């Protein structure tokens, strides 16, 4: 039944004006993805009122186009400027930017485009396979599992910051402290708000991310001068723009990374509240951990681009699992997508797959086409995009700062958001200067809120017997084991290595 509906949806997108809406969505999503501070959430939020007069299926194509295209768009600036266009691309900067600095931006963009498209396809394929059991999957993830997933994520922080463990932990703790600001999700008590109303809802994510990644990086660039690939004031003349196809091929050569990244992306995507940033970060850190040569990462290893990029596109498929099962959003984007459905008189819920199969499969097809289409467009334009790294920072910096601050303002129309972005930018710059990892702070901020809330819920529903409660649930047990492995694997490996050295 699922594949029949899929074929019908394919037919429908091909006929009529659907494809135009899809293309419009892809272009819109690509632009919003490229610009730091603007992302899929902003794009969809701005589009919601526009879709009101549209046919519901056309609205799906538009939304799907945006959702599928933003994450690849964001990887372009992540690679070229060390500034992730959207939050989930943050992990792409680790190896993407070093590649760009070495003049291999084409290789990185090629790999990112291909990994995005393939990740998107794998994510949606997984979704279609799991639609019949979507309900069971969602029901097996309760507060206990959410809490354990955040613990797993936090453990991955500790082990991902290779060689800078203490700095990584400090950044993580700052992130957790930030996560506690605002009213308690359960009791409603206000904490650390300092009498500022703005902080009641906590420290908002988008301004934090934009400040941490876009503004701080622009400060760094401005003070350094020259251009990205030029290093100092010397213009880079001999930079090669070729290598795009090598990048595409590299994805298939590293199919294990692609597959793992996609599956992690799909799983994390299905968990409400975690989202693409955590998905791509976990995909990256697990790839580094399981690699034979973990020290080659962070210096321009192409596998470090493939892992996060496949994960952040696969998460779109995953985030639709709770949506088709119960009408609950798996990500901020799907929340807005559900808003579009509501606007069209469709009530998100368990009966959606029965009554609104057309719209759901329309969206699936749209996201698939968008993921592939955006990557193709990206490949076509990559030759020109790479030139950004040669543009003088005197032009790049003010442009990016102006656009990203505007983007932050547009989302909610609050000047305080802009102020917070600047403050986070300063903090981010200090972190760059003193060599503290910024992404760990952000990941801890994202995870901290879910961790605290689900732990509190877990305490309430288990009558204070949290451990017993978790041990009785199979999914919880699997997650506990995974966390222990994540924590001890690097230590065990280190001990093994030193043991071998001694033996030799």
């Amino acid at each position: 039944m699922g594949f029949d509906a899929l074929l019908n949806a394919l037919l429908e997108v091909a006929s009529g004006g659907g494809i135009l809406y899809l293309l419009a969505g892809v272009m819109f999503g690509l632009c919003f993805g490229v610009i730091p501070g603007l992302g899929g959430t902003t794009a969809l939020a701005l589009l919601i009122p526009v879709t009101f007069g549209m046919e519901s299926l056309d609205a799906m194509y538009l939304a799907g186009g945006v959702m599928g295209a933003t994450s690849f768009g964001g990887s372009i600036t992540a690679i070229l400027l060390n500034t992730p266009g959207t939050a989930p691309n943050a992990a792409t900067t680790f190896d993407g930017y070093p590649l760009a600095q070495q003049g291999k931006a084409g290789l990185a963009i090629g790999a990112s485009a291909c990994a995005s498209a393939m990740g998107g396809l794998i994510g949606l394929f997984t979704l279609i396979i799991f639609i019949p059991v979507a309900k069971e999957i969602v029901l097996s993830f309760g507060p206990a599992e959410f809490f354990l997933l955040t613990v797993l994520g936090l453990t991955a922080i500790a082990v991902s910051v290779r060689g800078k463990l203490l700095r990584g932990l400090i950044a993580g703790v700052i992130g957790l402290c930030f996560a506690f600001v605002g009213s308690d999700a359960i009791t409603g008590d206000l904490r650390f708000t300092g009498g500022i109303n703005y902080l009641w809802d906590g420290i908002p994510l988008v301004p934090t991310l934009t400040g941490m990644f876009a503004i701080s990086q622009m400060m760094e660039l401005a003070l350094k001068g020259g251009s990205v690939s030029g290093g100092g004031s010397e213009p880079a003349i001999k930079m090669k723009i070729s290598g795009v196809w090598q990048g595409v091929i590299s994805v298939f050569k590293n199919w294990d990374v692609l597959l793992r990244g996609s599956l992690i992306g799909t799983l994390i995507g299905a968990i409400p509240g975690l989202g693409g940033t955590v998905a791509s970060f976990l995909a990256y850190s697990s790839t580094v951990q399981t690699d034979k040569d973990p020290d080659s990462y962070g210096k321009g290893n192409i596998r470090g681009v493939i892992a996060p990029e496949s994960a952040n596109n696969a998460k779109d498929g995953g985030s639709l699992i709770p949506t088709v099962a119960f009408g609950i959003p798996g990500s901020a984007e799907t929340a807005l997508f559900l808003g579009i459905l509501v606007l069209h008189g469709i009530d998100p819920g368990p009966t959606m797959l029965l009554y609104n199969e057309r719209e759901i499969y329309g969206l699936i097809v749209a996201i698939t086409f968008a993921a592939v289409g955006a990557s193709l467009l990206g490949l076509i334009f990559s030759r020109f995009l790479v030139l950004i790294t040669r543009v003088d920072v005197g032009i790049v910096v003010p442009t990016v700062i102006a656009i990203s601050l505007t983007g932050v303002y547009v989302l909610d129309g609050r000047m305080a958001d802009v102020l917070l972005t600047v403050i986070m930018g300063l903090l981010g710059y200090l972190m760059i200067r003193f060599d503290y990892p910024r992404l760990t702070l952000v990941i801890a901020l994202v995870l901290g809120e879910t961790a605290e809330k689900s732990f509190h819920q877990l305490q309430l529903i288990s009558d204070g017997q949290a451990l017993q409660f978790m041990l009785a649930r199979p999914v919880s047990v699997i997650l506990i084991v995974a966390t222990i492995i994540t924590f001890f694997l690097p230590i065990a490996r280190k001990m093994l290595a030193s043991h071998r050295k001694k033996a030799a």
Partner: protein
Amino acid sequence: MKHTIKAGVLLMAAAFAGPALADYPEDGSITFVIPYSAGGGFDTIVRAFAPEVEKALGATVVPENISGASGTRGGQSVARAKADGYTIGIYNVPGLNVAETLDRDLGFSLKDVTWIANLAESKYAIAVKSDSPIQSVKDLCDLGRPIKLSDTGKDSTSSIAAVIAFNIMDCPIINVTGYGGSNDTMIAVMRGEVDATLKPISSLKKYTDSGDLRLIATMTEDTAVEGIPTTTELGYPELAKFGLNRVVGGPPNMPEDIVVKLTAAFKAASESASVTEWAAGSGTELLFMDSAATKVMMDDLGTFYEQYKAMLQ
């Protein structure tokens, strides 16, 4: 050249003088403030009504989302606007009434709002998992331990209703809050981590239709769902007072004639084919009240929640 300048000046003068001269709502557009972001329940009802109100008034209606601070930011911006009928808003009722009862600073006073109309109302029901052994409210109260309920936030209207309602029925509860949305609270019941949930009948309907949840009582005066007892029948008539209303209002001291025009436009819209069709599709229970009836209801709600002030603090 000279003439063009003169004409231009005249034109500008006419443009600026326009608003003062024209008859409401002939010039310009009406801003309809939604205190929550696009795509939510408040947003949706406004966007469903807007085109029909437009037709009835003959003026453009522009929905504007001003979200933040639990719906108070939008209310503040309406309260600050000119009382000329070109800015109106939708209000979170009874969320704002409760906040005001608890002496929270809304940045404006509900008593000053010019009430224009009530558009819709939903009543609550109590639901359990469909295969749960609990068959009635009595079974639920006789569990021998505090009942676990699921909710989004401690300040949410359904959570407030649950705290008061179960207190009236004399059943101790643990309200597990922090769920992402009302759908998540119902899924928590299906997962079995909580015993029951108290939610609007219209939101519960999709899960009772799909066979995942079962109602044990509706908090209404008359039977709302066939075969399900009402709390009034169970001997708790005051529980039927709880509900969720979609109320339209404007800045303080709006001129009477403008209010009359707006009320009439909303009445026409609520009777229009497109709105009733939308309501049927989305499970919205339309309930039109004119400005006088809305004002009475709002005052009543204030006194109603006042008596439970101690319980809510």
